């Protein structure tokens, strides 16, 4: 079965999760990946959305973080202050799964502005839950499409802290969690270098060359000593993902 780069990205992102994870899910690409994991190899995963739903098992992907489907299929739903205090700050979440408009060499995220804060060229939606997801979850996975616009040397605004200026910057701020440990794109999987924390290509998706991923990156991209090929999606993963998107499109197309 052939696949699109976006399917490759979503399947690879899903494979990063396991049944043991308690995952704080961002909307959009993370939500598709997390639910694909739940519907394939990680049926035991606990999915949490910031609207307060714990252990949700939606049949279709939500358009927002608070769609009724999420609440109806959840183990329980808690108030928003409780979500952020007991569950997120309380250290109950193993993985935060995020996306962003911009990510930089040290996996810092920008979802706030392009251009100066006071006079933005583009005003983006803002933080949402991300600044605390980035520091309170055991580790953070990022999923986003790769381009020179989205992968920049240094983000214009640090909405959510990744590895700061690299090295032990997290530790120096008193942050004890791992932060971004992998970045999954439509071209490759990157991981922070163990010492410098600079994002480094760990695997290339089938058919993607080093030049192609360099071309889509806004800094002089490094490669791990041994770059592997990301395993291709299986037929089962693709079928489950396409079914999920089909059900979702049908549900969101008209009034439900």
């Amino acid at each position, binding site marked *: 079965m052939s696949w699109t780069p976006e399917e490759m990205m979503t399947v690879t992102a899903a494979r990063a999760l396991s049944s043991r994870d308690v995952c704080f899910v961002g909307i959009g690409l993370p939500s598709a990946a997390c639910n694909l994991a739940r519907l394939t190899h990680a049926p035991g995963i606990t999915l949490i959305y910031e609207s*307060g739903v714990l252990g949700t098992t939606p049949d279709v992907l939500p*358009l927002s973080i*608070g769609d009724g489907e999420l609440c109806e299929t959840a183990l329980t739903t808690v108030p928003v202050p409780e979500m952020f205090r007991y569950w997120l700050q309380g250290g109950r979440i193993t993985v935060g799964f995020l996306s962003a408009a911009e990510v930089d060499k040290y996996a810092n995220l920008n979802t706030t502005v392009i251009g100066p804060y006071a006079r*933005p*060229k583009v005003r983006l*939606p803002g933080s949402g*839950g991300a600044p605390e997801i980035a520091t309170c979850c055991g580790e953070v996975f990022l999923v986003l499409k790769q381009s020179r616009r989205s992968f920049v040397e240094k983000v214009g605004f640090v*909405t959510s802290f990744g590895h700061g200026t690299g090295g032990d910057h997290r530790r120096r701020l008193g942050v004890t969690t791992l932060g971004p440990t992998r970045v999954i794109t439509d071209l490759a999987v990157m991981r922070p270098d163990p010492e410098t924390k600079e994002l480094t290509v760990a695997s290339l998706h089938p058919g993607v060359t080093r030049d192609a991923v360099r071309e889509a990156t806004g800094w002089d991209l490094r490669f791990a000593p041994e770059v592997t090929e990301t395993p291709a999606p299986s037929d089962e993963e693709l079928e489950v993902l396409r079914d999920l998107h089909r059900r979702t499109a049908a549900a969101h197309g008209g009034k439900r």
Partner: protein
Amino acid sequence: MAEITTLTEAIRATVRDGDVVAIEGFTHLIPFAAGHEVIRQGRRGLTLVRMTPDLLYDQMIGMGCARKLIFSWGGNPGVGSLYRLRDAVENGWPQPLEIEEHSHAAMACAYDAGAAGLPFAVLRGYLGAELREVNPNIRDVTCPFTGEVLAAVPALRPDVTVIHAQRADRQGNVLIEGIVGIQKEAALAARRSVVTVEEIVEDLGPRSPNAVVLPHWTIGYVVVAPGGARPSYTHGYYQRDNAAYKAWDKISRERASFTAWMAEHVLGQEARP
């Protein structure tokens, strides 16, 4: 004591020019009918407060109701930008909009502190985050027991909070179910409050002993507004109109199409009931 009245009366009695107004709802139970009434009554100079300003605040900002926005995520969920919010911030149309920007965790804690009558909220937040540099209301506080430096933000104490809920009984006790969001905290933090409901019933009906209920003596006004959360949704009554959220992307993109839509769908309508 909650007074059961009409939407027009409740908004007239509570929302004044220059007020700090929280019209809350976390995707679910967004009080569109009430917000539209604020627009029709021509309120100006409001400081709008909401964790997730979405279409309703986009509409209020585009109609010139607001001079300031306190928020933590301003987008059309799953769709994209709020173009009226962006036009106000990027181009000052229809007037400049001051923003005070937080993270969700901080705003949730700030409402909680407001409901608790505390002056500020504390959280282990904003670590390494640049919002600290642009929002002077994000400060440090040192734990007197451990010496840990934590983030502090002022409590939110709106002049008025407006929320939507499933139903009230004839005394004005209000039941909220589903994604309960931040509404209880926002209502209890406010000086004045309005709750719109799908229906008023003799008895709130079967519910968990731990159901979220706002007693009538905590609420200013209760208003029957069936469908008052559309195109958002009311758990147990109707579902989210995701198609309408997607359609807003096109309507709101240009000033002219926005203004025409508002004239037809909001200004030209009577408050229900």
